[in-house]
């Protein structure tokens, strides 16, 4: 959908020519978010801004939807691309309504159409149209302003969005909220998005693909999991950080790692049965007790099962915390550490036990991806290797 072909920018400075972007080749498939990531001065912002010509490319081409944009009129091109910047840049002289309808009005929509669109957009970003449309930007908080900034970029429903550190100026708590809201919106809108960030955690959270830049060159372009499991060189490795294995925990869902083979007992079973199941399944310490509705009800420990007679319902301990199938492994790891356990039962959306997840399975899952350095991480067409 967005394809960059040998895109290059050379700045003439008093100290001589500086290559800000050096023959960048990449392609973002339709409906995906591509994060441009790297230290400051690496060329990621330059690359982004060459797409809507805020910065003129020295050479190279930009294709949108297969069409070469070189010959297009700059204003038309920009009106067909949503643009969000870090400083937000809402027009203080206009009301919120005027701000978010700027592009529709430039495109000559009639009054009823853009008024209606303004209300739709406010619904989309979960802000009250009645309360906010007539206000001015200075009356809004930073987080609200950036939501409006995103709405303004989405106003004319452009297929492509460019976002330059859009959530960089927002405090961490609000940032996480806005990121989640944005991902939820994106799940429906399926825009093709290029997104500049310098925050590796944001990149992993938001990106379908991540492009790492260094000194004007595209160093690696992969899916987040591939990037973390197989960094191409020392620079990428150090940029991702020593704890990149832990960062991968964010990317993997319980559903991908859990095992549905699991022994359990019912409250009406005897402790004898419990002991034999513990042995059958090879559990070390305990077995889960599940009630009639399939929900976790408690734990029968091996020592109790061995030394006591009676029914499970009279001799159980409190149930351990559970992992939802859609939780990420980071949360699971955190629960395991907090509760000093090596496994957790997994429950489905209705709270019924459907398997268990072990620390071993998690480390195995991460480890197996480490060993295979995937060739298929992403097509990097004729991208020169950077030296380490």
């Amino acid at each position: 959908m967005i394809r960059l072909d040998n895109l290059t920018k050379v700045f003439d400075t008093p100290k001589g020519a500086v290559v800000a972007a050096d023959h960048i080749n990449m392609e973002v498939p339709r409906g995906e978010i591509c994060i441009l990531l790297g230290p400051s001065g690496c060329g990621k912002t330059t690359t982004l801004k060459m797409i809507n010509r805020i910065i003129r490319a020295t050479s190279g081409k930009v294709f949108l939807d297969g069409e070469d944009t070189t010959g297009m009129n700059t204003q038309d091109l920009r009106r067909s691309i949503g643009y969000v910047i870090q400083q937000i840049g809402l027009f203080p002289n206009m009301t919120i309504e005027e701000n978010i309808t700027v592009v529709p009005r430039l495109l000559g929509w009639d009054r009823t159409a853009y008024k209606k669109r303004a209300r739709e957009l406010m619904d989309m970003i979960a802000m009250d149209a009645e309360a906010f449309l007539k206000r001015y930007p200075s009356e809004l908080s930073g987080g609200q302003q950036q939501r409006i900034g995103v709405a303004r970029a989405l106003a004319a429903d452009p297929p492509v969005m460019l976002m330059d550190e859009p959530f960089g100026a927002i405090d961490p708590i609000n940032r996480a909220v806005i990121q989640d809201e944005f991902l939820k919106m994106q799940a429906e809108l399926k825009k093709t998005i290029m997104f500049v960030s310098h925050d590796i955690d944001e990149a992993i959270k938001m990106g379908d693909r991540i492009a790492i830049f260094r000194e004007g060159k595209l160093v690696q372009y992969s899916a987040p999991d591939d990037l973390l499991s197989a960094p191409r060189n020392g620079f990428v490795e150090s940029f991702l950080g020593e704890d990149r294995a832990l960062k991968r925990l964010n990317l993997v869902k319980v559903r991908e790692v859990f095992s549905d083979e699991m022994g359990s007992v019912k409250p009406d079973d005897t402790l004898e049965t419990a002991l034999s199941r513990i042995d059958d399944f090879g559990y070390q310490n305990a077995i889960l007790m599940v009630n009639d509705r399939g929900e976790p009800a408690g734990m029968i420990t091996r020592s109790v099962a061995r030394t006591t007679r009676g029914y499970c319902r009279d001799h159980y301990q409190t149930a351990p915390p559970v992992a939802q199938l859609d939780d990420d492994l980071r949360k699971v790891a955190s629960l395991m550490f907090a509760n000093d356990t090596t496994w957790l039962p997994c429950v489905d959306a209705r709270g019924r036990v459907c398997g268990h997840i072990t620390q071993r399975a998690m480390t195995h899952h991460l480890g197996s991806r480490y060993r295979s350095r995937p060739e298929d991480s992403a097509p990097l067409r004729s991208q020169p290797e950077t030296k380490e």
Partner: protein
Amino acid sequence: MPIRSLKSAGRWVLAILLFAAGVWAQRSGVIEDFLYYLPDVRYLAVQHLFLTAVSGSLAIAIAVPLGIVLSRPSMARFAESLMQVLNVGTTIPTLAVLALSMSFLGIGTVPAVFGLTVATLLPITRNTYVGLKGVSPALMEAAAGLGMSPAQRLFRVELPNALYVIFAGIRTALAINVGTVPLAFLIGAGGLGELIFTGIDLYDTVMMLAGAIPTALLAVIVDALVATIAFLVVPRGVNPSRA
């Protein structure tokens, strides 16, 4: 508490002084003398305002576009030096400017309007230029990135956001203008200066005041008028007085 009591005491003293002044004016016959000049004041005030209105509008009509042109990126190389030339221009006393314009335009209304226009030009140009340059680069990038043409950027984003500063310049310039118009009398353009300068020459304090007090009042009124226009015209979101 002491400040508040001081304030109310001050108010009392002021009221008493005003009253005393009124009594004195009535007793000494100054008010009658003043009233004697009333028809003159009326006629000359109209002339005075005419000069202000013509030279002021001309100055606005020249200075605002000039400021806009100077603030364009393509003019960046010359803009600062041109502003310096204008700055040096204002250090020339208005009287000298009027004298100069008289020396090649003769006497009467035309040279006076010319001289006043030149003297009023700078504050407006300077404020227009500074106001436009002061519009945040982020706004300009957003405006460009959303696909506004250069003209749309100027009229929808830059000018509305610079308007408050531009109006501040117009306000200063017109207040100075009203205060300078009396000098126009010296090159034969009339105005309240006629009473002021004749009063000085004749050592007639009442006559001089009959010119000076209306001049001051006109300056205050013009200033209030421009402030009101600014209040109404500058968009609410960028208008500190309406925040």
